[in-house]
C-alpha cells in the first residue's frame, strides 16, 4: 500500500511539471509581455527595456523556462502587480477560504447525494423516486451562478418582507463575515456568523453535483441490491434497514468514491462563479479580479494552483479507492 501511494505520488510529479510547462507555453504564445502595461506616454523606452532586463525577459527562451520552473519549484510564484505583494502572501490568505467553501460543499454533495440515491434505489419507480429524479435533472441543468442569484433573491431579499420569517433563516449575501460587529462577537458568535455566511454559497456550489451523485448512487445501489449476498442477508432474517445500510451501502459506495476525483474540477469551476457572486474572498474571486487588473503573474499562479488541487484530489480519490476496495491490486 505504501509503495502504491509512493508510486502514485511520483506519477503526479511529471503531471504537475507538464501543467507548469503548459502555462509557460500559453504565456509565450500570448501577444505582448508583462511590460506592456508600462508602455504609455511619459515612460521612456529605456525604462521599459530596463524592466525587461530586470525581469529576465531578454534572456533566451530555454533560460526563461528553466528559471520559471525553478522559481515555482522553490515556492516563489513572483510578485502580484495589483496587490503589490508576493503572490504567495496573497494566496496564503485566499486558499483557506476556497478550501472551506469547497470542503463544506463536498460534504453537502456526498451527504445529500448518497442519502437521496439510497432512498431512490430502495423505492425504485415509486412516486418519490420519479419526483426526485425529475428534481435532480432540473437542478443538474442549472448554472451554479444563476442558482446563487436565485437563492439570494429568495432567501436574503424576499423573505425579509415576511413578518414571521425567522431572522436566522434570512441569509447574508456577501463576504465571509459580517463587516460590522464581527470582532465584538464571542467564539460561538463568530462561528455562527461564519456558518451563516457559508449556507447560501455552499448550497449554490454543491447542489448540482449532489444531484449528479444521487444519480450515480441510485444506479450503483440498484446494482448491488440485486446481488446474491443481499438475498442471503435478507434470507437470514436481517431487518431491511441493516441489509441496506450495512451490507449493501458499503459496496454501493465504491464507485461513488471515484466521483470525488471526477467532480472536483466542476466544483472548482463553479467556485470561481459562486465566489464572484457572493464576494467570497477565495481563489476564484482572486483570479477574476486579477484578470480585470491585468495582473498576469497572479492569474498564472492561481490557475496553476487550481490544477494542482485537481491533481491532488484525483490522487486522494485513487488512494481512497485502493484502500477501501480489497479487490483492487496495487502492484
Amino acid at each position, binding site marked *: 500500500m505504501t509503495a502504491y501511494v509512493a508510486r502514485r505520488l511520483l506519477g503526479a510529479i511529471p503531471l504537475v511539471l507538464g501543467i507548469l510547462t503548459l502555462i509557460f507555453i500559453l504565456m509565450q504564445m500570448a501577444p505582448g509581455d508583462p511590460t506592456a502595461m508600462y508602455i504609455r506616454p511619459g515612460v521612456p523606452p529605456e525604462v521599459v527595456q530596463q524592466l525587461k532586463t530586470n525581469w529576465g525577459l531578454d534572456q533566451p527562451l530555454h533560460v526563461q523556462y528553466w528559471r520559471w520552473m525553478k522559481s515555482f519549484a522553490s515556492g516563489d510564484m513572483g510578485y502580484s502587480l495589483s496587490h503589490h505583494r508576493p503572490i504567495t502572501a496573497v494566496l496564503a490568505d485566499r486558499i483557506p477560504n476556497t478550501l472551506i467553501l469547497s470542503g463544506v460543499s463536498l460534504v453537502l454533495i456526498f451527504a445529500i447525494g448518497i442519502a437521496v440515491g439510497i432512498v431512490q434505489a430502495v423505492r425504485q419507480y415509486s412516486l418519490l423516486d420519479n419526483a426526485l429524479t425529475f428534481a435532480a435533472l432540473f437542478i443538474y441543468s442549472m448554472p451554479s451562478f444563476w442558482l446563487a442569484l436565485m437563492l439570494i433573491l429568495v432567501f436574503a431579499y424576499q423573505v425579509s418582507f415576511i413578518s414571521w420569517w425567522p431572522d436566522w433563516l434570512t441569509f447574508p449575501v456577501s463576504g465571509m463575515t459580517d463587516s460590522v460587529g464581527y470582532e465584538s462577537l464571542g467564539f460561538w458568535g463568530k462561528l455562527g456568523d461564519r456558518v451563516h455566511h457559508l449556507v447560501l454559497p455552499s448550497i449554490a456550489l454543491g447542489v448540482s453535483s449532489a444531484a449528479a451523485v444521487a444519480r450515480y448512487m441510485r444506479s450503483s445501489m440498484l446494482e448491488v441490491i440485486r446481488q446474491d449476498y443481499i438475498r442471503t442477508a435478507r434470507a437470514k432474517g436481517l431487518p431491511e434497514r441493516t441489509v441496506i445500510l450495512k451490507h449493501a451501502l458499503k459496496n454501493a459506495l465504491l464507485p461513488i468514491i471515484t466521483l470525488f476525483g471526477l467532480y472536483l*474540477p466542476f466544483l472548482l469551476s463553479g467556485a470561481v462563479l459562486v465566489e464572484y457572486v457572493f464576494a467570497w474572498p477565495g481563489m476564484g474571486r482572486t483570479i477574476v479580479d486579477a484578470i480585470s487588473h491585468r495582473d498576469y503573474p497572479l492569474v498564472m499562479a492561481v*490557475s496553476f494552483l487550481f490544477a494542482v488541487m485537481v491533481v491532488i484530489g484525483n490522487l486522494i480519490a485513487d488512494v481512497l479507492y485502493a484502500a477501501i476496495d480489497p479487490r483492487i491490486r496495487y502492484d
Partner: protein
Amino acid sequence: MTDAKPSGRGSRLAALVPGLPLILGGRAGGYPLLAFGLMLVLVLAAGFDRVLATFSAGRIDYWVALVTLVSGLAAAWGITLALARREADDGTSQWAIAWREFKKNRLAVAGLVLLAIICLATLLTPFLTQHDPGAIGDIMATRHQPPSLAHPMGTDRYGRDVLTRVLYGSRVSLSIGFIAVTISITLGTTVGAVAGYFGGIIDSALMRFVDMLISFPRLVLLITVIALFDMSITLVIVILGLTLWPSTARIVRAEVLSLREREFIEAAHALGLGAPRIIFRHIIPNVMGPVIVAATLGLGNIILIEAGLSFLGLGVQPPTASWGVIIQQGRDVMLSAPWVTTFAGMAIVVTVIALNLVGDGLRDALDPRLSR
C-alpha cells in the same frame, strides 16, 4: 430492400446533394429538400465575402448567420440520408435499432420535442417578436416593467423587452455552443482514435497531454487563456472548442482500444489498407454512438460554461444579448426587476434539461450493454 436503390459512384455523388437520392429513388419528398438545400447554398455563395469576413471580423451576428445556414444545410442533408437509408434498411441496422429504443423512452422523446421547439423558436425569432433586442426607447416610461401581456417577461433597465432579448440570446448562445461542440468533438474523436489505434508512445504522449488539460477546472483554463489574449468572440468560440475535447478523446480512445482487436479491423489490415483509411472508414464510424452522446451532453455543458464566461464579462460582450449577458445585466437590478435574471436563467435551464434528456436517451438507446 427496394429495387430502386441506386448503386455505384454516381449514387455516392448524388448522396452529397440534399434531396437528390430521394428524387432518383422516385420519391417526391426529395424536391422540397433539394430546393431548400439549393437556396441555402445560393445564400452562402452570394454572401461568400461575408462568410470569409466571419473569421476575421469577429462579429457575433455573422457567426450566428453562418451557423444557421450551415446547420440548415446539414439538416437537409441528414434528413435526405436518413430517408434514403430507411428505404434500403430492413430495420436491423444499428441506427434503426437505436431509434426504436429511443422512441420507447418517453422522457427522451419529450426532450427531443422540446429541443426542436427551442431550435424553431431560435430560427423564427424575428417573426415571434416585434421588438428590437437592442432598441432603447423612452427609458423613464418603459424600464423595469413587470411581466405583462405586452412584455411577457417584463422589461430591463433600458426598457428593452426581456423576451425578445432571451430569444435573440438563444441564437447567440446556441450558435456558440454548436461551433464549439463541432470543434471539440472533431478534435477529440480524431485524437482519441489516433491514440487508441497506434498505441505505444503516441498513445502515452497524447494521453498525458489530455491528463494535463483535464486537470484544469475548465472555466479556469478558459479565463486564463482569454485573459492572456485579446478578447474577441472568435477567440472565445475557438477556445471553448479547444478546451472541451479531452474528455471526448478519452471516451473514444477507450472504445478504440477494444475495437482494434476485433476481426473486421484485422481483415482490413489483411487487405492492406492504410492507417488513415482504417481509422476514418472503419474505426470512427463504429465509435459514433458514444461520440454523439458526448456531443449532446457536451452542448449542454458548453452552454452552461458560455453563460458563466459571459456572466463574468469574459465571453459575449454587451450590448449583444446572450443568456449570460442578460443574467449579468439583470443582476445589477435584481431587487427592482428580478424577472430579467430569472427568465434568462430559466431559458438556460430548459435548454440544458432538453439536451440532458436527449443525451441520456441516446446513451440508453446506443449502449449495447444496456439493450436487452
